[in-house]
């Protein structure tokens, strides 16, 4: 018999837990749900747009009756659970009861009503559920209606905006002297008030409600100072309180909410709790993002996987009033120990403030232009040291370098037909439609359904902004802890550390140790683990070719028509007549369809079949040519200019230096591709300042540059240091490459890696600490012993022959 699971509370957190559970263990439980409201599960967040007439109730349903039926879930709508018999494990709701083996409490919260005289009058409404919205829309239906909204916080303002759009005359009453004081500082709140006034809202600040007037039906509100404001509708939006009455009644430990541990268990191990009713590590939450994280963890334990932990969330705020962009997160007020960076442009209605402590973001508040909200939020959550880009922090995550969409970043203002994802040709309209039609909440969902941001990822910021904008409010941010892939809950860093500290030397050992959810991983984690093992245990780990992407498995680049390209190395961009002749001969002999001069200073042969590869390599090998690794997450090219040997400006022999660099580093596998260049003078003809490692020769020696990137998002290098001899260039290069090899995440180029860990960190390891540098250099050279083995020569001689021929040919 299946175990029985009962959910009390058919709301956003509870049902999300079921969804997560059904993904993990669809057959494990017989599930029964009790919901106090007479509806199936809907998106409570969207009640604001419904009130504003921008959406209908139908459009905000998340799971209809069919969903419950399809998943074998019994739903008791409109059934309020009165009590739970914990000894017999039975839930009672009027005439219905249900037995459970495990129970989830997700009873949400209830709106707080200030206990003034008249608060029970007809026409005094809170803003929590569909019934409230119905009541408000009903009141708004009468012409010339007047409404008072008590509370100038998020909910109050969204209610006021909605009623205003429904044609009511709305006055917002607030106890404090500034709106949304918990989410905004004064300047931002002022801007907000000005824009809301322009929309027709009236405000009474620092006004204390004394009584609600009327007999039976509300007629107005009186304040402490004697002022009376007439109204037929009073909306109380002064705050919410966790709804733990039921939990308390049945004897579960409660404080400001039902107290749970990191696995979302209450003090009764059979009973879990999630959502707004919960108190976790002293915190309660009132936004969906943390609740969805809780849901994930709870589901993980219900499915008996038992490894997830909820460790609390950092949240951010947005207001869902069309045409108003504001964002805030963390501590944006600051104190004597913090510093504030402020950008104010009253003419354009812009305001941005970032609060720093020890060069880490404590909080941010912005008004008018919130596109960088997600970025600041991420930096804050990850506690990133921002000293390296502090001077440009306020200007945002310079999207200007992105190829493909220029500076067209104002997602809200973009036309539906604007292309967001250049790789997959996905337009804004398609993404918005997918988000609303399929009720998507996370970046991963959008990726799966639209493919946007699933390729090069440069549009991730735009997609996140679109999500935030469309879902409104706080969509589910990618969790603070980013697992390597859906097969595991552990991060890249945790796994790398585990591989090292626990001497895991085989992929299956890693999967066992970290309790992988899949038996043999997926196409995302297998290549990553293969690299991590290879990097950690050079000479010991046996490379797993079936865990390599086809290009690396076949040592050639696959093309759209399943042919391959071949690019031999041309050391430092130099070549000889003999090499050129060999390439020309091969091109003729195998009827190569195109010879192309690559962007990396070498020649590429296109349109070859897989069977031809070993023979071609055989011919090239004879002429002394080796694999150029143009297909690998590995050292690619080292571009050089002609330097001092020829050029009238050259200061050093950049060509010879480039060749030495390439001879030292070729064959090395890296987290992502690694490109280098050496220029003979600051005119920089080899474009060294957009390479992973670039050398610019100067009269006094060599400037070493790191973390450059040409591709999707252009990033100029950071200056690492200045050195005096070619040998030093080689040593620093080896050390830098090794640090990157050991610490970057798989598929992270040096540019995002340096932005993540900070240039100062890299300098500390390589420039300031010579012992650390020498150790890195040594580890690099040790690993190179095993890596510098030309894969083409081996395959030309017959290695891995099965890779290149069909198993059977039928004529």
């Amino acid at each position: 018999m299946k175990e029985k699971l009962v959910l009390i509370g058919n709301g956003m957190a509870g049902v999300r837990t079921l969804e997560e559970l059904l993904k993990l263990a669809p057959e494990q439980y017989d599930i029964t749900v009790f919901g106090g409201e007479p509806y199936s599960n809907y998106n409570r967040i969207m009640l604001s747009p419904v009130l504003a007439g921008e959406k209908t109730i139908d459009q905000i349903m998340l799971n209809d009756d069919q969903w419950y039926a399809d998943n074998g879930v019994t739903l008791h709508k409109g059934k309020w659970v009165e009590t739970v018999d914990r000894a017999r494990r039975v839930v009672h709701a009027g005439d219905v009861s249900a037995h459970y083996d495990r129970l989830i409490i997700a009873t949400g919260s209830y709106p707080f009503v200030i206990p003034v005289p008249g608060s029970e009058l007809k026409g005094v409404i809170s803003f929590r559920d569909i019934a409230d919205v119905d009541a408000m829309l009903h009141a708004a239906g009468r012409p010339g209606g007047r409404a008072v909204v008590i509370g100038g916080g998020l909910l109050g303002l969204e209610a006021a905006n909605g009623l205003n759009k429904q044609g009511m005359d709305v006055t917002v009453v607030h106890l404090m002297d500034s709106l949304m004081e918990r989410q905004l500082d004064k300047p931002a709140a002022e801007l907000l008030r000005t824009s809301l006034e322009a929309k027709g809202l009236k405000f009474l600040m620092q006004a204390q409600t004394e009584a609600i007037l009327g007999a039976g039906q509300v007629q107005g509100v009186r304040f402490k100072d004697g002022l009376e404001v007439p109204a037929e509708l009073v909306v109380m939006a002064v705050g919410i309180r966790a709804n733990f009455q039921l939990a308390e009644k049945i004897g579960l430990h409660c404080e400001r909410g039902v107290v749970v541990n990191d696995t979302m268990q209450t003090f009764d191990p059979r009973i879990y709790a999630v959502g707004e009713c919960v108190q976790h590590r002293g915190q309660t939450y009132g936004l969906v993002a943390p609740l969805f994280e809780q849901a994930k963890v709870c589901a993980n334990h219900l499915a008996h996987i038992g490894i997830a932990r909820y460790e609390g969330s950092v949240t951010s705020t947005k207001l869902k009033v069309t045409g108003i962009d504001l964002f805030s997160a963390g501590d944006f007020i600051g104190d004597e120990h913090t510093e504030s960076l402020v950008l104010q442009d009253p003419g354009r209605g812009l305001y941005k403030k970032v609060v720093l402590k020890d060069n880490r973001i404590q909080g941010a508040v912005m008004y008018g232009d919130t596109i960088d909200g997600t970025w600041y939020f991420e930096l804050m959550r990850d506690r990133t040291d921002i000293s390296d880009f502090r001077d440009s922090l306020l200007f945002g995550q310079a999207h200007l370098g992105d190829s493909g969409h220029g500076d067209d970043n104002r997602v809200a203002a973009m036309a539906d037909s604007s292309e967001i994802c250049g790789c997959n040709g996905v337009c804004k309209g398609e993404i918005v439609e997918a988000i609303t039609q399929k009720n998507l909440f996370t970046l991963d969902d959008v990726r799966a359904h639209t493919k946007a941001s699933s390729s090069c990822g440069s549009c991730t910021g735009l997609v996140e902004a679109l999500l935030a904008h469309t879902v409104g409010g706080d969509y589910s941010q990618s969790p603070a802890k980013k697992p390597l892939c859906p097969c595991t809950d552990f991060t890249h860093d945790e796994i790398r550390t585990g591989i090292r500290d626990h001497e895991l030397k085989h992929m299956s050992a890693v999967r066992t140790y970290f309790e992988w959810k899949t038996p043999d991983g997926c196409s995302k984690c297998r290549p990553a683990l293969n690299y991590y093992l290879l990097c950690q245990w050079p000479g010991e780990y046996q490379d797993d070719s079936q865990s390599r992407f086809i290009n690396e498995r076949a040592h050639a680049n696959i093309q759209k028509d399943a042919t391959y390209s071949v690019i031999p190395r041309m050391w430092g961009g130099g070549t000889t007549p003999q090499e050129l002749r060999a390439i020309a001969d091969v091109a003729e002999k195998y009827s190569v369809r195109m010879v192309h001069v690559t962007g990396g200073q070498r020649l590429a042969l296109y349109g070859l079949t897989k069977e031809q590869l070993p023979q071609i390599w055989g011919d090239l090998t004879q002429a002394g040519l080796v694999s150029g690794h143009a297909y690998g997450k590995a050292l690619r090219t080292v571009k050089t200019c002609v330097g001092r040997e020829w050029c009238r400006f050259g200061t050093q022999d950049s060509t010879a230096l480039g060749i030495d660099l390439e001879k030292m580093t070729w064959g090395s596998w890296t987290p992502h591709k690694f490109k280098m260049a050496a220029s003979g003078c600051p005119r920089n003809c080899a474009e060294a300042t957009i390479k992973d490692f670039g050398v610019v020769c100067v009269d006094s020696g060599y400037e070493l540059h790191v973390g450059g990137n040409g591709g999707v998002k252009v990033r100029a290098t950071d200056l690492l240091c200045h050195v005096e001899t070619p040998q030093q260039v080689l040593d620093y290069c080896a050390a830098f490459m090794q640090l990157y090899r050991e610490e970057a995440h798989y598929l992270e180029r040096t540019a995002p890696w340096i932005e993540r860990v900070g240039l100062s960190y890299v300098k500390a390891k390589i420039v300031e600490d010579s012992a650390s540098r020498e150790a890195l250099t040594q580890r690099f050279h040790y690993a190179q012993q095993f890596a510098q083995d030309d894969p083409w020569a081996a395959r030309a001689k017959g290695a891995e022959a099965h890779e290149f021929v069909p198993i059977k040919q039928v004529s």
Partner: protein
Amino acid sequence: MNQAQQRVTDTEGWLEVGRIEEIPSLGARVVRTPAGDIAVFRNADDEIFALRDKCPHKGGPLSQGIVHGRRVTCPLHDWKIHLDTGLAVAPDEGCAARFPVKVDDGVVHLSLAADEGCPDR
């Protein structure tokens, strides 16, 4: 059944492909036929599957993809295809034709007549 097929298959229509070990575990090999390539996959549990070597997305060679569980990830744009049904993993839509396979005494046999259900394009 056309003439070429008659020549290579036995009376029941099975073509002998080779021994199971000739296909790398978590990998694939190609059977080349006049009607196009067929990819024969072997997963970690030594289950054998055969699909038309053409991704339903843009025709990528599935045999060159990474095999995991009962799925293969297409090398061109990362679609995942169910090896047992040939269907693309949702939310992608499409399917690659499936061919019957059997293993006798470690020898893999393949039928060149695609299963019903998914058009063999």
